């Protein structure tokens, strides 16, 4: 199929919209922007398995659909397993000549809750089994679809409805689970982080993930203006600040080798936190604590990058 493209700088990108407008996402939703870019990168030859959550709910109220590609939703916690079945089913039917040979990517998409909590086991199982599929986590740092409850991907100090700020609580008291690292620990060929505020980086990584043979995992930072209590025109800016402050570094891990895609002089984390209502209550001391953690985590990441570049003995 010939596709119309537009030139943006040196890059050409498709004008095809496989995630059609008319969905019911919140105004300014960073996740929907990320999904739309993801679909541009993936193209039509995919089967999407989608977890329960914001993306599914805003895109598929019967009798409408936002999906221009084959798409299935079954449950909250089984997305990676469904995608395993899709991949296996297509593979065997092509092998047996039941359907024509063609490269069709099995893609799982899910929120951070579906990924780091309830669907964690299914994801780990699918990565371990080595299915040729891509798992994309759209991380808005809470259970947003059910109304901003904490997940294990909610960062320290954020106020949510199940980890609220109160006289005796600063909100979330645990540290954000490091899903990309957990994916790396499975020894899969490709892991990447991305954010819609860096659209080309995101699209290139998604494309790469699809082209990789074997499991690939992409963790997409998805700003949620509703849950993070920010103005609806700030999603892109806040995503950018997360990257610029080192809160959410953009990197990829190819066959165990780390590469930082953007390595800015880090801006103060306070600037990022102060933009958001969910961190409004934090004292300077708490902010300082968060800053220290971000600095040390970033340093650890840079060490891994450096080690990956060092010539092997």
């Amino acid at each position, binding site marked *: 199929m010939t596709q119309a493209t537009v030139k943006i700088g040196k890059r050409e990108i498709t004008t095809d919209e496989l995630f059609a407008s008319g969905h019911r996402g919140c105004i300014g939703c960073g996740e929907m922007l990320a999904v739309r870019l993801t679909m541009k990168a993936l193209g039509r030859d995919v089967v999407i398995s989608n977890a329960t959550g914001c993306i599914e709910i805003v895109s598929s109220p*019967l009798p409408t659909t936002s999906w221009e590609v084959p798409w299935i939703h*079954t449950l909250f916690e089984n997305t990676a397993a*469904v995608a*395993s079945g899709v991949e296996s*089913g297509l593979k*065997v039917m092509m092998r047996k000549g*039941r359907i024509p040979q063609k490269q069709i990517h099995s893609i799982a998409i899910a929120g951070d809750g579906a990924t780091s909590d309830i669907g964690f086991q*299914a994801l780990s*199982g699918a990565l371990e089994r080595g299915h040729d599929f891509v798992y994309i986590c759209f991380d808005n740092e809470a259970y947003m679809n059910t109304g901003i409850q904490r997940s294990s991907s909610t960062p320290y100090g954020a106020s949510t409805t199940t980890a609220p700020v109160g006289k005796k609580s600063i909100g979330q008291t645990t540290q954000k689970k490091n899903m990309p690292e957990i994916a790396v620990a499975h020894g899969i060929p490709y892991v990447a982080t991305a954010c819609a505020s860096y659209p080309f980086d995101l699209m290139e990584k998604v494309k790469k993930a699809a082209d990789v043979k074997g499991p690939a995992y992409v963790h997409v930072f998805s700003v949620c203006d509703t849950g993070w209590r920010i103005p609806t025109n700030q999603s892109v800016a806040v995503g950018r600040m997360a990257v610029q402050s080192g809160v959410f570094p953009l990197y990829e891990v190819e066959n165990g080798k780390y590469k930082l895609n953007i390595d800015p002089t880090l801006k103060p984390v306070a600037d990022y936190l102060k933009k958001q209502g969910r961190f409004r209550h934090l004292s300077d001391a708490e902010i300082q604590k968060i800053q220290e953690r971000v600095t040390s985590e970033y340093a650890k990441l840079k060490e891994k990058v450096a080690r990956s570049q060092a010539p092997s003995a």
Partner: protein
Amino acid sequence: MAKGKRVGMEGSIAIAEAVKLADTDVVAAYPITPQTHIVESLAEMVANGELDAEYIPVESEHSAMSACLGSSAVGARTFTATAGQGLELMHEALYIAASSRLPIVMAVANRALSAPLSVWGDHSDVMAVRETGWIQVFAENGQEAHDLTFWAFRVAEDPEVLFPVMVHVDGFNLSHVTEPLFLRDKADVDKFLPPNKYPTPLHPDKPVTMGAFGPPAIYTETKKAQDVAFMKSKKTILKGFKEFAKIFGPTYSPIETYQAEDADTLLITMGSLSETASVAIDTMRKAGKKVGQLKIRLWRPFPLDEFRKAVSNAKTLIVFDRALAFGGQVGPVCSEVKSALYGEANMPKVASFIGGLGGRDVTAKEFEYMITQGMKVAGKQTEYEMIGVRE
């Protein structure tokens, strides 16, 4: 006129052989006693190249059923097997298979539920999933386990049906018993079972959205439509039995009776203990008692018409259950029987017995006791009687 190769074979292996004969595309597997021999045997077939299938050794039963959802949705012929706790862990996904109209076939080696942990057989797991929208049949012996497994694909995949099917085999009593049976010929199975042609598979050449969410304005209609279609599947189920008889010989039916024509009293059973119960019927017949037996093969959709017809001349029904319904008055099959009879003219009297829990043996003598005792208490009984329990 039975057709096939006469062999001595364990029930579980007979099921695996049927899955192979069906040229199944995808097998999702997670071990649990007493089902394990089925998926182990399939693993060997795939490893030896006897069966060209994708074998997905998932990390849990929840994922087993979920992988089945995915592979079935792309149009692949899909099988899995489970039991007891595994079936419970699948519970949520079972509804999805049925309401998404995905023709998955699953063997369930019926097993008791924890606690206390028991790997042995009863029908607790079945009863916990009876309203999930799966077509459910009970095999009585190894031959039926074999036959009903490839029959299940034919029914499930029929465009008039498109519902998943569970083939229930009693844990150990059937799954682990080696018996003589006819292994069907591939050529006959091919005649009986056409290739799977799922009408709306997930494929980029013709994209579909599957599993969209149903707002209140739509949900009710989708559920009504599902139930209407489910009830209609009975037509195809019967057609499947008929075609089966033409090609292979044996005539299966939703309800089977034994010595029932002139019987005043009918013992109602389901599953492999039906054979033991038949021995009791024989003994009592010899003693001149007008007793007979009714076996339920098709459990869902419940064959109401056939059932009512089969009991129309009986005065007393004695229902044997292998599961409890906590807080209810009688066993789950007995509840079903009572609700099927309510308001019927000449309603027979009913007695409820529960036994064989967690693998406890039920002897022919005990079935005789149930019949004799049941004739006395039917209609007067206020709750079930437990068989073989040490008080």
